[in-house]
């Protein structure tokens, strides 16, 4: 499903921050992406999400070479990927329900067709009582769950999460991890970028470890 071949990445004329990255992930897998701060976790996620082009090498997503795809086809591929940002990126002028429904609205589906799905998902992530609340009044954990709900509402085949537990307490971190595991059981491939070892120790999942620009799978 995901294949990185000899990927290198440099910003401008600087040194390569990622070097000779090779890996292959199969559908339905669950991985942690880890490494020290500045190791390139977010850059790798951005390449997985096609918002950053590698300086060299090939990236294959869902069987397609991403290098020369036109923007419309890249948008179509992105629809098969859900992403959870460290800083949530919820739109402040939309309610929690509207934020979560945003991908389906963007896909051009009618509100009637997804109204119940969004409501059910919000209840499933424990935000049933906060559907009409705006992001500015949500707690960090609630925002994170709303961001996760938005990432999975389109039933993505791949879920990318960048430090999803960075802004929440350990109890909430555990709840979010269980949520990711549950999504993975339902068939979604999951990659969680984190440097929270306590979180990783709670789940027996392979780790993609970035160190000095190189990646190894442990």
């Amino acid at each position: 499903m995901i294949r990185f071949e000899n990927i290198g990445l440099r910003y401008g004329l600087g040194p390569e921050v990622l070097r000779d990255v090779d890996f292959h992930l199969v559908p339905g897998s669950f991985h942690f992406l880890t490494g020290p701060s500045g190791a390139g976790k977010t850059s790798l996620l951005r390449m997985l999400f096609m918002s950053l082009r590698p300086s060299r090498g090939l990236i294959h997503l869902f069987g397609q070479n991403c290098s020369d795809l036109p923007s419309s086809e890249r948008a179509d591929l992105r629809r098969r990927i859900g992403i959870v940002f460290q800083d949530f990126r919820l739109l402040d002028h939309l309610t929690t329900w509207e934020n979560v429904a945003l991908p389906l609205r963007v896909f051009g589906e009618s509100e009637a067709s997804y109204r119940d799905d969004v409501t059910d998902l919000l209840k499933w992530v424990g935000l049933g009582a906060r559907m009409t609340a705006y992001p500015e009044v949500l707690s960090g954990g609630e925002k994170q769950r709303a961001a996760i709900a938005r990432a999975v509402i389109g039933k993505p085949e791949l879920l990318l999460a960048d430090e999803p537990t960075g802004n929440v307490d350990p109890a909430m971190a555990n709840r979010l991890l269980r949520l990711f595991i549950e999504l993975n059981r339902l068939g979604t491939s999951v990659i969680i970028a984190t440097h929270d070892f306590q979180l990783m120790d709670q789940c027996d999942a392979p780790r993609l470890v970035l160190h000095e620009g190189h990646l190894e799978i442990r």
Partner: protein
Amino acid sequence: MKVTWKFDNLPGRLAERVRTSPWVAVVSGLARRQAGSGTAPIVQPASVAGRALTVVIAIMTFLACLTSGAVYVVNQSANDWFADIASEVTVQVSEGQGSEFEKKVTLVSLFLAKQPGILRVNPLSAEESGKLLEPWLGGSDVLSALPVPRLIAVEIDRSSPPDLNALRESLESNFKGVTLDDHRRWQAELRTVTRSLVLGGIAVLMLVGAATVASIVSATKSAMASNREIIEVLHFVGARERFIAHEFEKHFLNIGIRAGLVGAFGATVVFLLLPLTMRLLSGRGLAAAEFRQFIGSAVLDWPGYLLFGFVVVVVATLCMLTSRFGVYRILKSYD
């Protein structure tokens, strides 16, 4: 109530273009809002940058409408003025005395009235001719002692004007001391003045237009910068570039139309009140009459007001296009 738009009778591609046009989206969006339905718009409807943009657009549209209206009025007044002058010639009877002179004036007038292409012949009396010289010679009795030539104002039919050269020759051969002045030199000078006025107005209009374009493009870019996060989120949830551009086009077209209409309405009020204001300020004297004669009544006719509509359309389109290019520029930085 659900508002639907039917374009079934249009050819396929055209119908698609019309259906996806931001103008249709804005109008149908307004209709939907009146019908009381719809979720929150994806682009934040009211933001500080959006309000600032609204104010800038309203002010610049107001100024652009005022300038275009003023240029239009000056152009119309100059044309009317020119048309008045061009539709009249003057015949001067300069030789003769006493009753013979009066008889000669009458004969010339009768001769002129019979010529084709002449609508009206108005021989000025000795008093009227004297009054024309009063500004230079004063109102004393000296005028009666002078051989003041008599003038005959001749109104010509502009739709089928007479051959003025033939008429001049005919007059000079039939009557001694009679000349025809077709104001050609005066018209040439007048044409230069009116053209200068209109060209000056167009130059001012172009400057205001350039300032309007620069202000609106700059304000729209600022407003777009504040919406960068929305573009980013839409991009990351899989929105196509065209979808994102369309959402922003709708939003900024809406702002452009609303603010533009406010500015155009302000300019309309100014032009509606202008004749009254001019009457109040200029009074009733001779100077006021001359002033009005020079610049006209300052009344804008319906094509003039139509010009305001055109300004609003240009301003709104400018906002829409600037937002579209802004979206594509931001999206390009992600790919």
